[in-house]
């Protein structure tokens, strides 16, 4: 039954109707009439309290949102003009990054030079944000509940999805042709991080995407045969510890003004820019393994 706008508004006002969601939850109907006698009274009192706080919560939220966005709009309108060269942000910090960036870090792409050399501590923290995400997703999604008596994890029954790509010939032939090119492009983006736009994060994500496509099309078991959990763990361990040790070396030598043995090489060549290339490769591996393990944990609860 199409409820009039006024009914919907009053329903929303009482905190009952979510104007954005029409799908009725199957459980809501069944749950209502399960309470008996005394417990019903408590439920009724709690519901009235919830209803009242629901109304209050809604009004407060709407008010808070409108004021907050309004204040932001007014404040942001008075920020320095967009695109004008004499903004306060165009100061000596930016000039040094661009002008001396190439000879100090050897990176033609100043953004990569800034991320992996000038402000490297942020990016070190950044890859550990990804590492925390892997740990948290593994805690949540690793499905080791069902264990066979001898302890080996019973594989979660991989239920056939709505569309099974490994049986769809069109997708299979096209991706058989496409996957190698995605890999090559990912490696290119990864290795040319300091010369052209790209670098660790985007290259790793493209490689991760290629792995996901491979797993999706050729079936998770074949992909799991190649990328076992032990392989992913050792890759994450080695690249993250290499990253932390290499960066702590350059922090230590920098802070104590010791000459560091890493030379920046001639800009423009692939093997230039000192530590940036190996660091990009390490970050690329971490991001690739992260994306692949996200996919496998979401798809079937385990990597193996």
């Amino acid at each position: 039954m199409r409820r009039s706008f006024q009914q919907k508004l009053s329903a929303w006002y009482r905190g009952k109707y979510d104007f954005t969601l029409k799908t009725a939850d199957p459980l809501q109907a069944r749950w209502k009439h399960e309470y008996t006698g005394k417990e019903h009274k408590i439920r009724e009192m709690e519901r009235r309290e919830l209803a009242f706080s629901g109304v209050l919560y809604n009004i407060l939220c709407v008010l808070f949102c409108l004021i907050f966005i309004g204040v932001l709009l007014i404040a942001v309108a008075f920020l320095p003009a967009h695109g004008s060269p004499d903004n306060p942000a165009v100061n000596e910090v930016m000039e040094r990054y661009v002008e001396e960036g190439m000879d100090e870090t050897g990176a033609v792409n100043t953004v990569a030079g800034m991320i992996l050399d000038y402000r490297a501590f942020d990016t070190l923290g950044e890859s550990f944000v990804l590492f925390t995400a892997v740990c948290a997703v593994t805690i949540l999604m690793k499905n080791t509940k069902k264990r066979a008596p001898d302890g080996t994890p019973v594989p979660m029954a991989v239920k056939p999805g709505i569309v099974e790509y490994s049986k769809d010939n069109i997708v299979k032939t096209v991706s058989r042709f496409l996957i190698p090119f995605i890999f090559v492009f990912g490696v290119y983006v990864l290795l040319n991080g300091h010369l052209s736009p790209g670098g660790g994060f985007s290259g790793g994500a493209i490689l991760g995407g290629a792995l996901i496509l491979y797993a999706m099309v050729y079936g998770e078991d074949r992909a799991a045969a190649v990328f076992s959990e032990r392989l992913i763990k050792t890759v994450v361990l080695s690249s993250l510890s290499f990253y932390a040790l290499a960066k702590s070396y350059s922090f230590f030598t920098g802070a104590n003004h010791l000459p560091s043995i890493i030379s920046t090489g001639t800009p423009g060549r692939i093997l230039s820019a000192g530590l940036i290339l190996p660091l990009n490769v390490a970050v690329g591996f971490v991001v690739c393994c992260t994306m692949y393990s996200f996919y496998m944990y979401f798809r079937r609860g385990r990597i193996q």
Partner: protein
Amino acid sequence: MLRDLFASGFIHNFPLFAIILCLLCAVVSFVLQARGARRITYMLLSACMALNGSVLLHNLITGASFTYSMGHFPAPWGNEIAAGLLEPFFALLFGVVMLCSITAGKNRIATDVRLDKQHFYYILVDLAQVAMFALCYTNDIFTGYVFIEICTLASCGLLMIRDAGKPLVAATRYMIFNLIGSGMFLMGITMLYGVTGHLLFPQLQQAVAASWSSGAYHGVMIVSIGLTVSGLAIKSGLFPFHFWMPDTYGTATPASSGILSGVISKGYIFLLIKIIYRVYGHSVFMETGMQNILFLFGIAGMIVGSISAIRAGTITKMTAFSSAAQIGYIFMGIGMGTKEAMVAVFFHICAHAITKPVLFLSGGALIDASGGGRDFTSLRGAAHRNPAAGLAFLCGSLSMIGFPIFTGFISKLYFALSAFAFPHKSMVVLLTLAVSTILNVIYFMYVSVILYTGRPDPERRIGIGRQKAFFAAVFLLILVNVAIGLHSQPLTFLFESGLQLFLQS
């Protein structure tokens, strides 16, 4: 010989060593099993305590703070770490509290978390530890944002690792509130960067002072201060945003709720204090009038937190709401803004960080002793069943009330003293202090009386023998509590000179 060892320049590298060590240990225990990961975390926490302790001694001896540029490029270009007197002290304090929480909660972790996921628990503790160090030592506002994100994700992981339905609901709610907070914090940083063009604290302070006196971007500056402060206030659970606390601390394993309430919300508050004093500068912050808002919300938090703690049905909810009240104390102190009030704030952070894990851990042990029942009826006489946990809970609640020999008394004393120096609002502060203390007494003593009612029946007693780790860690915290409570002069001296160093740099 010892003096020049501690005064030598090599100690400047120790904060970097502590951070890199934590990162490496987190990665290495990714491939280990539960027992290996736990040993690595114990070694790591004690090593970091030693490193931070020597940095603190070094700064005490030389009497000056130092900045440590991360990489070959000096301040405005590269990242930087600054260590005065307060930063190493709080890093040390957070390390001690984390170590004691884990050792005390060891067997509860073993039961709550599934065996093949326990090494993740210790990885998340390492990552929370490195986030705390970075929040304490950082001298760069965007590094602060990145490590706030690590802290949020690690604390959400610590919360949801318990294998049950309720922690998942609590984790979702916790994440939503925290992500709103860090979104607002990032918006504040963006506006600040747009107006000043710098990201490091010393340059930011000069740029903010210059543009504030010239009055160029007045409105944008006020909004960016508002966003940054409210973002961090949401994350540390100030009054209107403390709804997620009872769920979060109520459902997690006692060790995690001890770490979350004692350490992680304090890390956000310490970063907020650094931003107020080192980025905006004390005078600019006072002119914006933001401190009155914090003062009001602090006072409201104290009262509402204590009232909802009285109404709380279970012991864990009650302790969680009392933690919201203590956060109210801290923000009231920040809102007062005078130097004595800041010393009281540092004392209260210290007192709360030490006492709250004791309450959560002993509460958890009492709940185990009374067959998992969390409400007060089933906890009746629990202290007789587990006398060590009962005594620990009693000492913790006495310290929260502000009983003379405990640290809580010192921080409330300093709050009262600073209220007199507070020009025209001293009556409000004293009244709220009195009311809040009375409310604390009501609900803490109510619980303690319940715990000790009923006759001790010897055969159901859990002696100390079976819980040696719990006993050692909890009573170490209580010992530190009493030590600071009885002899607080050195700490006051440390906080005052630390604050002096804060204002100079």
